């Protein structure tokens, strides 16, 4: 095994949180190295540059690593879960392939036990993260409209996305019902911003933005971090974290781009591999001292997996919608975000509205749902559906349940022979009621908009975008994996900064909060450099 010279800080993963923590720590002038199993993406290869852009979503640009199967991906056994894991593995991680919807967790989300008597409170509160939310919004480049009465106050540096054709249809429906809605904060640049060109509405943002208008950390944080001296080594897949006789992390074993085993020593190791990759790595890092996996004295590594079950309902209006000619999401609602026990469940959900779909997606989805017939009537029905879709998705707060978990699959391995993760997940009773409520309210919204041919995805099967809770944060080492500033209770030079550390999930897309936490942990580390391991 080749051995490299030691670095001060080794970060595993160059996605949302790894990029943010690398950039923040760069001003310490420490020797910082980041290893990522993927490589740099090339915007000229992105789907929207070709006429076959929609077909690519079913293959090379699928959100599912199991379908996509790029060499940079690792397989995931999610057979025992109604929600399949979706992610992307490259510099930028899943920010290359996300909707760019940018809500923050609410202040109340950090006090779930206190307010509603379920799950646990976080050991930190919203106020601790506020400056890092703001810093992150500047770095990622956020568009939106300040002043939403039912969301935390934000200061987006760019104006909100235009309402387009779909926005007024949704807004009018919500006004008719007297329900809250607001233009979403998104990381889609609505004006030229920090070297990024403004959005030109290429269509669905999820499978990467050829214009570079959507923020992904390969084009936001990483150029700054590298300029500040951080080294990023690509196509390096970490197999395990090693420890020394003092129980401290001593470095990692990884496979380089040629598949050659390497050892990289480090003084500090930071894991930023998401809520599935992080427990997988910890569980693969067994030793005599840590027989159940690293940092796992609590037994909670991999447990309490939270996904956000998406209950989606959609229909078709007479008026034309934005179809694929706009970013997919532009509006949100927090009408049902907070607990109201009369609904029969605790906590709540955010609503994310969808503007429409492209013709291939529409044909495939509608045929599968049985509303687009075969035969002579196909053409008439397709013209009624195509370009007329509106969607309502309830992003339901998943409560932490230990039986929802990531373990190591006894058989399945990745291309380097490293045991793959296995997901065991069921939708909890509270989430189920919440989803039913969301679907019923979604139906009312669509009917208020005049929609017909209503269909549901309950849950969205390939909707496991948000991977949370599998190395939770807390002050009690027997009930958490990392402390209130991201340091492992068991291994004093090991930190976790991704969605694994979430104690609860909130009812919104988590990337903004994940990155704010990564910046917060970096700031805590910088403040404690003299006694980081005490």
């Amino acid at each position, binding site marked *: 095994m080749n051995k490299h010279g030691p670095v001060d800080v080794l970060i595993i993963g160059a996605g949302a949180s790894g990029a943010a923590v690398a950039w923040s720590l760069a001003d310490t002038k420490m020797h910082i190295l980041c290893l990522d199993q993927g490589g740099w993406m090339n915007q000229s290869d992105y789907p929207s540059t070709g*006429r076959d852009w929609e077909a690519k979503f079913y*293959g090379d640009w699928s959100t599912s690593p199991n379908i996509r199967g790029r060499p940079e991906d690792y397989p995931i056994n999610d057979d025992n879960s109604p929600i399949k894991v979706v992610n992307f593995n490259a510099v930028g991680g899943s920010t290359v392939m996300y909707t760019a919807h940018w809500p923050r967790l609410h202040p109340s989300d950090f006090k779930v036990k206190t307010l509603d008597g379920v799950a646990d409170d976080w050991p930190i509160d919203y106020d601790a993260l506020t400056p890092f939310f703001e810093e992150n919004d500047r770095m990622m480049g956020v568009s939106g409209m300040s002043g939403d009465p039912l969301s935390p106050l934000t200061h987006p540096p760019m104006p909100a996305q235009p309402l387009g054709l779909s926005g007024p249809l949704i807004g009018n429906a919500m006004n008719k019902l007297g329900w*809250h809605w607001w*233009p979403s904060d998104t990381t889609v640049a609505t004006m030229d911003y920090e070297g990024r060109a403004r959005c030109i509405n290429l269509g669905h943002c999820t499978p990467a933005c050829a214009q570079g208008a959507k923020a992904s950390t390969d084009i936001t944080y990483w150029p700054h971090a590298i300029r500040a001296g951080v080294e990023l080594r690509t196509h390096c897949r970490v197999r395990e974290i090693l420890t020394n006789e003092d129980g401290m992390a001593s470095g990692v074993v990884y496979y380089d781009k040629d598949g050659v085993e390497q050892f990289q020593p480090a003084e500090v190791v930071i894991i930023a591999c998401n809520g599935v990759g992080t427990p997988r790595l910890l569980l693969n890092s067994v030793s005599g001292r840590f027989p159940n996996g690293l940092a796992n004295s609590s037994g909670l590594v991999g447990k309490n997996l939270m996904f956000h079950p998406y209950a989606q309902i959609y229909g078709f209006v007479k008026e034309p919608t934005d179809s694929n000619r706009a970013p997919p999401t532009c509006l949100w609602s927090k009408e049902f975000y907070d607990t109201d026990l009369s609904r029969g469940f605790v906590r709540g959900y955010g609503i994310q509205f969808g503007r429409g779909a492209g013709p*291939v997606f529409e044909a495939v989805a509608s045929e599968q749902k049985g509303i687009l017939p075969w035969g002579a009537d196909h*053409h008439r029905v397709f013209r009624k559906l195509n370009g007329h879709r509106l969607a309502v998705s309830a992003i339901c707060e998943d409560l932490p349940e230990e039986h929802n978990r990531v373990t190591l699959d006894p058989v399945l391995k990745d291309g380097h022979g490293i045991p793959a993760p296995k997901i065991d997940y069921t939708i909890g009773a509270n989430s189920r009621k919440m989803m039913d409520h969301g679907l019923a309210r979604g139906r009312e919204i669509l009917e208020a908009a005049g929609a017909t041919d209503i269909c549901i995805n309950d849950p969205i099967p390939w909707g496991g975008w948000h991977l949370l809770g599998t190395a939770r944060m807390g002050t009690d080492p027997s009930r958490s994996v990392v402390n209130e500033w991201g340091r492992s209770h068991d291994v004093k030079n090991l930190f976790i900064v991704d969605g694994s550390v979430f104690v609860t999930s909130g009812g919104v897309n988590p990337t903004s909060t994940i990155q704010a936490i990564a910046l917060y942990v970096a700031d805590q580390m910088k403040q404690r450099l003299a006694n980081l391991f005490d």
Partner: protein
Amino acid sequence: MSDAFKLTSTQRDDLRTVAAMIIPASDEYKVPGADDSAIQADMLATLGRDTALVRQALDHLARLAGRPLAQLDAAKREAVATEFRATGGAAAATLVRVVLQCYYRNDRVLRSLGLELRAPFPKGYTLNEGDWALLDPVRARAGTLRRAQ
């Protein structure tokens, strides 16, 4: 071997026949059927990673039909198609998706739908800003963020 030759001649015939059952030509909308030669050529040229499942679907179809699909009378063909959709699973879904994704990127079809014949990038599209006065009722109702304590 090119993707076109990954299907046998019989399989290609069945693919053409079932494609026409999914989307027949229409004089009313001035569009070809999915059995059009250019659309079929696109399917065969771009099967790629779908080849195995499409072949599996066509094998299933052949078993149900018992002979080339085109040789069945219309009623029997419909019955086979119904059974195929009910029992074909992921393979059948893949075949249908391949037909649809090639059909709905064909120039004549897109033109008939009033869509431009181009990739989204680099021209993009324009969105209307809209009237933000639509938010006035939300502002008027206001509401408060739930407190954390």
